[in-house]
């Protein structure tokens, strides 16, 4: 037989049974609660994210999804709860106990974020390549040629036109600004990419292009993503698993198809039907 599998040279491979391994979560949050004044923004929320998956978080405005994302980005500390990231060479401690400097370094090296408002994520008076370079500079890169090269690669991966890499974000369209944010977020190959309403405010055709870029990145680089959106269409396009939040609580979670085709909770049913 001509097939290399059956020519007798690789019998061990042919007969070896597939190895089954349990995937350890890359992100584990437990019992996250947060109160702002009289408002309970999060009520004992648990989150688990596995390597390479896209977790979609949906909910109406004020449901606590962006607050939860800020916790994941270590921008805020909850009143109660723990946060673990499984990172190579890192002791598995509660990340909320880290000081400001440690949080900044962890963010710089391991977490990327794309905000809904590009003004939160970009320095508008600096060039697009400079915005990407800033992240590399924080991480300690001090070689100008290497900065240029790595910024170019990240922008290219985000499908940003390289002829405009030195244009300021303020001179770019909303979709291009989101691509610069994305390039900045992935420049250091983060373990976790957080996306806070990345396509809100963009017109439908640009939304589709940005989502297409995200899907390509997720496929090619196998980046773990947490996507927050109130747009069920975006979540349906991107997410493997979906978590539905309301009034600071998780009311339902499951595989994307399951949530969209067979919602169990009344609120989820209302959401899905409202969309449809």
């Amino acid at each position: 037989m001509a097939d290399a599998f059956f020519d007798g040279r690789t019998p061990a491979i042919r007969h070896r049974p597939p190895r089954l391994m349990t995937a350890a979560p890359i992100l584990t949050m437990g019992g996250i609660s947060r109160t702002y004044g009289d408002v309970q923004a999060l009520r004992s929320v648990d989150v688990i994210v596995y390597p390479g998956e896209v977790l979609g978080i949906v909910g109406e405005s004020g449901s606590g999804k962006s607050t939860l994302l800020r916790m994941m980005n270590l921008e805020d500390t909850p009143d109660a709860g723990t946060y673990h990231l499984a990172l190579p060479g890192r002791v598995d401690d509660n990340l909320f106990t880290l000081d400001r400097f440690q949080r900044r370094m962890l963010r710089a090296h391991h977490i990327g974020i794309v905000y809904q408002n590009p003004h939160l994520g970009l320095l508008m008076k600096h060039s697009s390549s400079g915005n990407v370079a800033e992240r590399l500079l924080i991480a300690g890169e001090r070689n100008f040629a290497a900065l240029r090269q790595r910024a170019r690669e990240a922008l290219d991966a985000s499908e940003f036109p390289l002829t405009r890499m030195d244009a300021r974000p303020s001179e770019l369209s909303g979709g291009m600004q989101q691509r610069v944010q994305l390039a900045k977020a992935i420049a250091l190959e983060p373990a976790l990419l957080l996306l806070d309403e990345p396509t809100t405010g963009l017109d439908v055709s640009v939304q589709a292009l940005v989502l297409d870029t995200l899907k390509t990145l997720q496929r090619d680089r196998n980046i773990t993503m947490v996507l927050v959106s109130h747009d069920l269409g975006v979540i349906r396009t991107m997410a493997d698993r979906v978590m539905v939040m309301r009034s600071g609580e998780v009311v339902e979670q499951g595989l994307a198809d399951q949530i969209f085709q067979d919602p169990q909770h009344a609120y989820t049913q209302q959401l899905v039907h409202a969309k449809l």
Partner: protein
Amino acid sequence: MKINELTKPWSAFNYGFLDESAKREIRRRTLKAVAIPGYQVPYASRDVPIARGWGTGGLQVTLTLLKPDSVVKVIDQGADDSVNASSIRKFLAKVGGATETSDTTEATIIQSRHRIPEEKLREDQILVLQVPNPEPLRPVQPDMSIAREMHGDADYGQLWLILYEQLVRSGRIMQGSSYPSMVNGRHVMTPSPIPRWDVPKLNQADHLTILSAGREKRIFAVPPHTSVEPLVFDDVPYRVEDHQDKTCYRSGVEGFFMNELPQDDGSSLYELSDSHFGIKSIRKAEGEPVTLGETWYKNGRME
């Protein structure tokens, strides 16, 4: 016993103009600044009889350091004879009994705006630099409390980003003066508006440098034998002004920092920025017994 025998004799002002509690505070702040090289120490900047922005920070430090046997030199952009430098020097002599000098090698305290003398300073000399804006992060972070946190975290990425942007836009680093420099591998400071030419003189120097901003109420310092490294990329070396081949038209000396004097025909003449070094060079050339001190730069190159 009469009352005038129990009290000190009246005088118009305290020795060194500032009251003792002010001098004590500034000395303590200065000691802290020396202990943490490059760290900006806040202090209660007092009023002195010159306007804010004219060297009040430097003057307060100099007044605090002053002793009756002090020999003071005051320079303004390299010149000993500008109105501001002359006024401050005379004031120091009047309120502290200090001896005035223009010679760098004779001075024990050198107060300066925008220049470090060309002759090397010794360990028994103190350089006081006047600083208009002590915060190197001001261009990237207008909020002072956030800037202090950034110093605490050594979060200086955005300063490198400014240099990156200059290289992208202009093909070279355009920062002319106040070049941000890392002190002792920890804090980034602005070395006051001295030219790039002068920044390497602070690195591993024998003398103590105290930098003081009166309006902004900050003191910081570079102790002797401390590293001062301008922020640079690995593959883009630090460059000083191209004055190596310029010749002073008055003294004939070359290889030092020059003032450019544009001429009517479009050409330029150059004269030594360090005015007294130029005067000494002329006197020496005329055969007078003048001793020139050792210089930081030799043939236009730093050792």
